[in-house]
């Protein structure tokens, strides 16, 4: 057995289970006497519900019960809560309209749940749902941002004027306007960040169970954060106290943010299980996922940079419209504010920044955090703007970045938009990426491609993000309604093996491996004697779950803190057993020793003494060796780096081929390099998807046109290139591991790199900017439109 601690590419503990078909995903769980729920969803974008006739459905074969919104309202079931409150620039709280679990009075997007059929089989429930007759009066609908804020637009929620959720600002407008008034150059760019549908491969599932003897509820659900679901659903929706509600999130097949939120179906099956006193399972069809999973992105922005004559950034001024969809999802209001506008300094020493964000309701599926959440939007805006500045001023795009970077000796660095970066070295990640991508050799490759009839381009993005979410006091002051610490329990068993109970949740990240490696390094326990338990509120003290690349930086830090407590107690026990002073006990590689002597005890000797305390300092110490720690981070962490995309366009079809992709990221301390590379590769693929393929399309009436895998272009193996992934790390200075996080960097840094490459390939066609996705049809049209003009010149 080789080295299996921090820094080793240990093969994953979870893989044999997944590779043998022995994973335990929510839909694999079945409870005795289980019924099936099928949800009748609105096919209208916006309509008044006049009547719901459930008579035929209720008497259909196999049907146990049919519930509608009025049934839940009659029992004072609450609406789905929002976890974050933003205040507008005038100090008023955001508009926070009710979000009923089952629609009451109106439906506001295609997919809005209207009724639920509970039946003996899924087929019976499906058949009966077809028999529900909903009498609607259609209302005008708004699907896109500009329509929703136009004068006279229909109100998605009665009384929410102009569909405005909030009108928020950061920065001093007068100061920034003053800088612009005196600038040598001003460069302006209008851009759209396209709406995405996360599409984790496992559709959402919820299984509610009710124990008729104890009155306890259990919800099995595809969640990234079971404790948060227990808190939100128990306290705000169903009024079930924590001691009577268990939430289990077993193996979960990908999340990317979309499985953070508390969804209607979780409340429906839990409540219905109590009503019918039998387990109730709901499994989403993929088509249902498209219209009920929270979507991502969807910004329309105008960005302006003020520059001096040499190209130094003097000030940044931005206005953004952000789509909230029809209701506020759990984290939604935070995404375009504290996860977006606070990132607008990026890696640059821009001295003043002003950003105004208007969050807008539309008749679309709610929008919330999707891999990167706000940071991809900020990065796309900044890195496109920088390339456009280079285009407009003639300054080389790499030199422009270099001269505006925050220097490596400037940390800690206070940005003008609230964040204080702790560490980073952007010149180094840039230099290594340029070398790895053979940037200097590119023009020869462009020429060779031209000889083959192809348009070749190269694009760069130097990005930064904030993750390791988040210091509770800071986010509390910004509107969060929860703390964002993490929890770990380290249970050293009597014979020295260890179980870790973590409040983070693994849905592909490999925590069962990575977190075990921390125990190998800190306690010297062999890898195969460490078990990581996650995803069950009945087993784990508490936890905020996994999102915002927080599992290692925050959850791992909680583990280190708990292991420090184990070591501290172990030293006291060791001191007693070896008749030495506690101060003289040293701990290293599983062994407690008395300094300067050959006396020692293993961790197993100590744990055995702790659980069999025959010779034990019982007056001073409790038996047992089981420690819990809550860790609240002191700051966000700030991964960053450089991504370079190289592409070729076939001018006859407009289709982009990804030729090369190079990533050099700074993610802080790396625990398992193999897993980090995998996380970056996966994130980059999602970024390439956003840049070239993916887009959620609503028609003007509010119908979702891209509502299946037939219509929504997911990246396939042939769309993604081989990637060169490397790290050049500086350590996080404020957590005990030095880790920053790697889950989102790929999706944050890559989209502008790809679009910058496409624009570079089309530079002879007069292209200054392109919005995503850069589809073949879009590029073909640009090439066709420009070709006669070019021929004439």
């Amino acid at each position, binding site marked *: 057995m080789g080295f299996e601690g921090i820094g080793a590419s240990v093969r994953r503990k979870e893989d044999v289970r997944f*590779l043998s078909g022995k994973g335990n995903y929510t839909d694999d769980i079945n409870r005795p006497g289980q019924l099936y729920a099928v949800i009748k969803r609105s096919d209208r974008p916006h309509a008044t519900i006049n009547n719901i006739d459930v008579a035929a459905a209720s008497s259909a074969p196999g049907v146990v019960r049919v519930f509608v919104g009025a049934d839940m309202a009659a029992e004072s079931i609450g609406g789905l809560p929002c976890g974050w409150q933003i205040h507008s620039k005038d100090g008023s709280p955001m508009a926070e309209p009710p979000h009923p679990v089952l629609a009451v009075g109106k439906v506001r997007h295609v997919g809005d749940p209207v009724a639920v059929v509970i039946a003996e089989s899924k087929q019976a429930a499906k058949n009966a749902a077809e028999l529900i007759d909903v009498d609607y009066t259609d209302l005008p609908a708004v699907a896109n941002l500009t329509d929703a804020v136009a004068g006279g637009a229909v109100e998605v929620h009665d009384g929410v004027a102009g569909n405005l959720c909030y009108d928020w600002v950061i920065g001093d407008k007068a100061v920034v306007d003053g800088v612009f008034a005196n600038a040598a150059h001003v460069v302006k760019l209008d851009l759209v960040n396209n709406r995405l549908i996360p599409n984790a491969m496992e559709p959402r599932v919820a299984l509610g169970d009710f124990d008729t003897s104890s009155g306890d509820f259990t919800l099995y659900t595809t969640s990234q954060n079971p404790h948060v679901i227990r808190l939100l659903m128990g306290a705000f929706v169903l009024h079930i106290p924590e001691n009577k509600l268990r939430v289990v999130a077993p193996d979960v097949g990908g999340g990317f943010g979309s499985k953070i939120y508390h969804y209607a179906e979780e409340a429906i099956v839990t409540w219905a299980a109590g009503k019918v006193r039998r387990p109730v399972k709901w499994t989403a069809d993929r088509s249902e996922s498209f219209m009920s999973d929270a979507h991502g992105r969807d910004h329309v922005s105008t960005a302006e940079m003020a520059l001096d004559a040499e190209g130094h950034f003097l000030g940044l001024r931005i206005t953004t419209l952000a789509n909230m969809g029809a209701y506020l999802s759990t984290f939604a209001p935070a995404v375009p504010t504290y996860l977006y506008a606070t990132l607008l300094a990026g890696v640059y020493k821009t001295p003043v920044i002003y950003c105004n964000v208007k969050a807008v309701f539309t008749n679309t599926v709610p929008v919330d955090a999707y891999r990167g959440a706000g940071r991809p939007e900020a990065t796309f805006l900044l890195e496109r703007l920088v390339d456009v500045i280079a285009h407009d001023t003639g300054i080389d795009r790499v030199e422009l970045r270099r001269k505006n970077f925050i220097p490596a000796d400037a940390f800690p660095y206070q940005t003008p938009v609230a964040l204080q970066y702790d560490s980073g070295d952007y010149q180094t990640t840039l230099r290594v990426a340029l070398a790895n991508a053979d940037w200097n050799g590119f023009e020869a490759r462009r020429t060779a491609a031209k000889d083959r009839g192809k348009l070749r381009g190269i694009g760069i993005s130097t990005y930064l993000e904030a993750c390791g979410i988040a210091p509770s006091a800071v986010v509390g002051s910004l509107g969060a309604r929860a703390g964002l610490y993490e929890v770990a329990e380290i249970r050293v068993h009597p014979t020295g093996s260890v179980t870790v109970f973590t409040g983070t949740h693994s849905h592909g990240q490999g925590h069962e491996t990575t977190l075990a490696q921390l125990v190998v390094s800190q306690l010297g326990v062999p890898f195969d004697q460490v078990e990581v338990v996650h995803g069950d509120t009945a087993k784990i003290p508490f936890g905020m779950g996994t999102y915002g690349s927080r599992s290692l930086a925050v959850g791992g830090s909680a583990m280190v803190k708990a292991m420090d407590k184990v070591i501290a107690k172990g030293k006291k026990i060791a001191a007693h057993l070896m008749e030495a002073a506690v101060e003289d006990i040293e701990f290293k590689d599983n062994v407690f020793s008395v300094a300067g002597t050959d006396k020692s005890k293993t961790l197993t000797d100590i744990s055995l003494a702790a659980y069999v305390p025959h010779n034990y300092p019982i007056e001073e110490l409790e038996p047992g060796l089981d420690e819990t720690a809550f860790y609240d981070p002191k700051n966000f962490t700030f991964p960053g780096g450089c991504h370079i995309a190289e592409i070729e366009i076939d001018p006859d079809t407009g289709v982009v081929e990804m030729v090369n992709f190079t990533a050099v990221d700074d993610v802080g301390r790396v625990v398992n390099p193999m897993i980090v590379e995998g996380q970056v590769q996966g994130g980059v693929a999602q970024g390439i998807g956003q840049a070239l393929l993916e887009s959620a399309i609503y028609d003007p009436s509010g119908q979702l046109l891209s509502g299946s895998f037939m219509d929504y272009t997911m990246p396939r193996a042939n769309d993604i290139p081989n990637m060169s992934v490397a790290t050049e790390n500086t350590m996080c200075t404020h957590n005990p591991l030095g880790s920053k996080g790697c889950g989102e960097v790929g999706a944050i840094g890559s989209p502008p790199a790809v679009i910058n490459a496409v624009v570079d390939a089309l530079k002879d066609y007069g292209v200054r900017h392109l919005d995503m996705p850069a589809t073949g049809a879009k590029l073909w049209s640009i090439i066709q439109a420009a070709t006669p003009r070019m021929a004439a010149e």
Partner: protein
Amino acid sequence: MPQVTLTVNGKQHTVEVEGRTLLVELLREKLGLTGTHVGCDTSQCGACVVHVDGISVKSCTQLALQADGTDVITIEGLAEADGTLHPMQEMFREHHALQCGFCTPGMVMTAIDLVQSHPGGLSEKEIREGLEGNLCRCTGYHNIVKAIAAAHPLMHAKAAE
């Protein structure tokens, strides 16, 4: 209800099914073989791929009745009785070709058919094109391609034994 008789992972079953029951429903719900997954409803994602008479098939796109008399292998039937993994499973593990594991069973079954049907070797491009019918949202495919390339010589060496 009609009956279907088929062999799954070497064991014969006779099961009553509805006419509309899909092969994947038979496997997951009637036989409890939940390793085969359902990730979509349009036959795009490939999470449900199994082998029917040695050929990879999307089990969401075949009726259970169509499988009457066939020999079906699912992800649960790949490893040897002592738990030794199939070379494709082993290479997926070695090359970190899976993250959440949800697409993995279908991906592995497709990959095995791809390797078996290309005894002379597989280029990277052929592997990527061969995965056209399988979606993965986690890995970016990079390590899946590596794993399949690495499994190719192992599988053909083993077949030659």
